[in-house]
C-alpha cells in the first residue's frame, strides 16, 4: 500500500515536472510582458508589477493589429487552399490504382524535406514574375511548399483507412469521383481535416523567412516578422518588454486553438498520421 502511494506520488511529480517545464518559458514571457523599463532586467518568479504599457505600445504603434490580420488571413487561406488541393490529391493517391503512384508519394515526401533556404531565391524570382511581390498572395503561394506535402501526406494515410465499401456504395449509387470526395468522404474526414488544418495553420502562422523576404511594407507583413521588427527607441535597443508582449499576443491564439482541438489533434494523428 505504501509502495502504491509512493508510486502514485512519483508519477504525479513527474507529471508536474513535465507541465512546469513545458509552460514555464511561456509563463515567464507573460510575466516579462507586464514589466517595463529597468524592471525588465530584474529576475522575478512571480508577477510583481502589472503594467499594460507593453501591450499598449505594441498594439497602438506600428501596424501590429494589421499584421495580426494579415497572419490570420494568410494562414487561413493557406489552410483552405492546401486542404482543398490535398483532399482531392490524396483521394487520387489513396483510392485510385494507377502506375507511378508510389513514386508520386515519395516525391511529395521528398518535397517536404527541401531546405527552405535552397529554394528562397528561385521562389523570389517566381514571386516577382507573377507580380505578387509584397502581397499576401506571395506568402500564400510560397507557404504551399511546406503545407501541401504535409497535408497531402497525412490526408492520404487517413483516406486510405476509410472503408472501401462506402466508396463502392457511392459508385453503385452513380457518384462521380468528385461527388465521392466532396459529398461522401469530406464529411467523414473532419478529424483529419481539423488536425492537418491546425498543423498547417500553425506552420503558416509561424513562418518567418518567406514572410520577411516576400513583403516589403508594414501593411503586408505577418506577425513573426513584425515581432522581429519590433524595435526600441534607438538602434541597438532590444525592446524585450514589447517583444514578450507581442509574443504573448501571437501565441495565445495558437495555444487556445491547441487547447480546443487537443483531443482532435491526437485522434487525427492516430487515425491518419503515423501508422508504422
Amino acid at each position, binding site marked *: 500500500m505504501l509502495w502504491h502511494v509512493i508510486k502514485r506520488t512519483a508519477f504525479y511529480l513527474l507529471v508536474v515536472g513535465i507541465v512546469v517545464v513545458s509552460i514555464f518559458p511561456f509563463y515567464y514571457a507573460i510575466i516579462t510582458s507586464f514589466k517595463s523599463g529597468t524592471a525588465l532586467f530584474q529576475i522575478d518568479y512571480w508577477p510583481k508589477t502589472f503594467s499594460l504599457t507593453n501591450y499598449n505600445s505594441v498594439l497602438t504603434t506600428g501596424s501590429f493589429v494589421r499584421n495580426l490580420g494579415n497572419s490570420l488571413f494568410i494562414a487561413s487561406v493557406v489552410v483552405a487552399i492546401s486542404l482543398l488541393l490535398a483532399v482531392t490529391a490524396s483521394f487520387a493517391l489513396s483510392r*485510385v490504382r494507377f502506375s507511378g503512384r508510389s513514386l508520386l508519394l515519395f516525391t511529395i515526401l521528398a518535397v517536404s524535406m527541401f531546405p527552405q533556404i535552397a529554394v528562397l531565391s528561385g521562389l523570389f524570382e517566381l514571386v516577382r514574375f507573377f507580380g505578387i511581390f509584397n502581397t499576401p498572395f506571395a506568402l500564400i503561394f510560397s507557404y504551399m511548399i511546406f503545407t501541401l506535402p504535409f497535408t497531402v501526406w497525412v490526408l492520404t494515410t487517413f483516406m486510405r483507412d476509410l472503408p472501401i465499401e462506402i466508396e463502392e456504395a457511392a459508385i453503385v449509387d452513380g457518384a462521380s469521383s468528385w461527388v465521392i470526395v466532396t459529398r461522401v468522404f469530406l464529411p467523414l474526414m473532419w478529424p483529419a481535416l481539423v488536425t492537418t488544418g491546425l498543423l498547417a495553420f500553425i506552420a503558416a502562422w509561424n513562418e518567418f523567412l518567406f514572410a520577411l523576404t516576400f513583403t516589403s511594407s508594414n501593411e503586408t507583413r505577418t506577425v513573426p516578422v513584425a515581432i522581429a521588427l519590433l524595435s526600441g527607441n534607438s538602434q541597438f535597443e532590444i525592446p524585450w518588454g514589447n517583444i514578450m508582449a507581442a509574443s504573448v499576443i501571437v501565441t495565445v491564439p495558437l495555444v487556445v486553438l491547441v487547447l480546443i482541438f487537443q483531443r482532435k489533434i491526437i485522434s487525427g494523428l492516430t487515425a491518419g498520421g503515423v501508422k508504422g
Partner: protein
Amino acid sequence: MAVAESLDMPVAKAGSELIRQRVRAAWIFLAPMLVVLAMVAGWPLLRSIYFSFTNASLTNIEGAQWIGFENYLSVTTLKSGRVIYDGLLVDPLWWQSVWNTVRFSVVSVVMETIIGMMVALVLNAEFRGRGIVRAAILIPWAIPTIVSAKMWAWMLNDQFGIINDILLHLGLISTKIAWTANADTAMLAVLVVDIWKTTPFMALLILAGLQMIPGDIYEAAKIDGVHPIKVFWKVTLPLVRPALMVAVIFRMLDALRIFDLIYVLTANNSQTKTMSVFARENLFDFDKFAYGSAASTMLFLILTVITVVYIIVGKVNFEGGR
C-alpha cells in the same frame, strides 16, 4: 441489333469505363497540387541546382556562366607544380557546419525520442487532468520558433536570465554562465531550446503509436507476471517501433534543416553554425551565390541520402501496412 454488335466487340484492354473514369479523375485531382508543387518547389530547386554549377553572384544572376563542378571541387595546378584543391568539398567551414548539423541532429533527435517516449508514456496513462496536461505539453510546440528563440535568448541571458538564477539558487553552478556565447555551451543551449520546443510533437507522434497497441497484450503480459519495466522493453518498445521510426525520420529531416532557431539564438557561433546557416551566409551575406547554391544542393543531397538509407536500414513502412 446493338446487342449483337456489342457481343462481338472485343473487350478493350484499357479496363472498364469505371476504372478509366477514376484514373482520369485521379489525374485531374492531382494536377492542381502537382502544378503548385512543381512551381513552389520543383522550379526553385532546379534553379538552385543549376546555379550551383555556375559562377552566379547575387549582383549578377543573369550573367551566370556554367563552370561545372568548380563550386564543389576545383583543382588547380600552380606553375610550381603544387596542386591546390578548392571548393565546397574541401572547405573546412562547410565540413564544420556539416559536423555541427549532424551532431545537433543526432543529439536532439535522440534526446527528443527518449524524453518524448517518457512523456508519451505518461500521457498514455489514465489519470485525472490528463486532458489539461496534454494541452499544456503542446504549448511549446505552438509557440512560433522566432518567439521561442527570443524567449529563450532572454531566459538564457547570462546576467538577467532566469536560468542562471535558478541554477545558482539550486547550487548547480557557482557563477553565471553565458550559455549562448560560450563555445562549449552554445550547442547545449541550442539543444535545450530545440528539445524543449519539439519534444511535444515527438511525444504526440509516439502517443499516437502507443494508442494503437491493443490493450489485451498488456493484460496478457500482466498475467504472465512480467514486470512493467520489462514490459516496456520487451513489448511496448518493439510495438511502437514502426511509429517511432516514422516520427524519428520526420524530426531528423527537420533537425538537419534547422535554421531559424540557431539564426536567432547564436547566429555566428562557429560551434553551432549549421548547413542551412552556412548556405544562407554564402547566398546572401557573402557574395557567393553560386557557392551558397552548391551548399543548398549538398544539403538537399545529404537529406535525401540519409532518408533513403534510414528508410532502407530501418525498414520504415510509410504505407500504413498496405
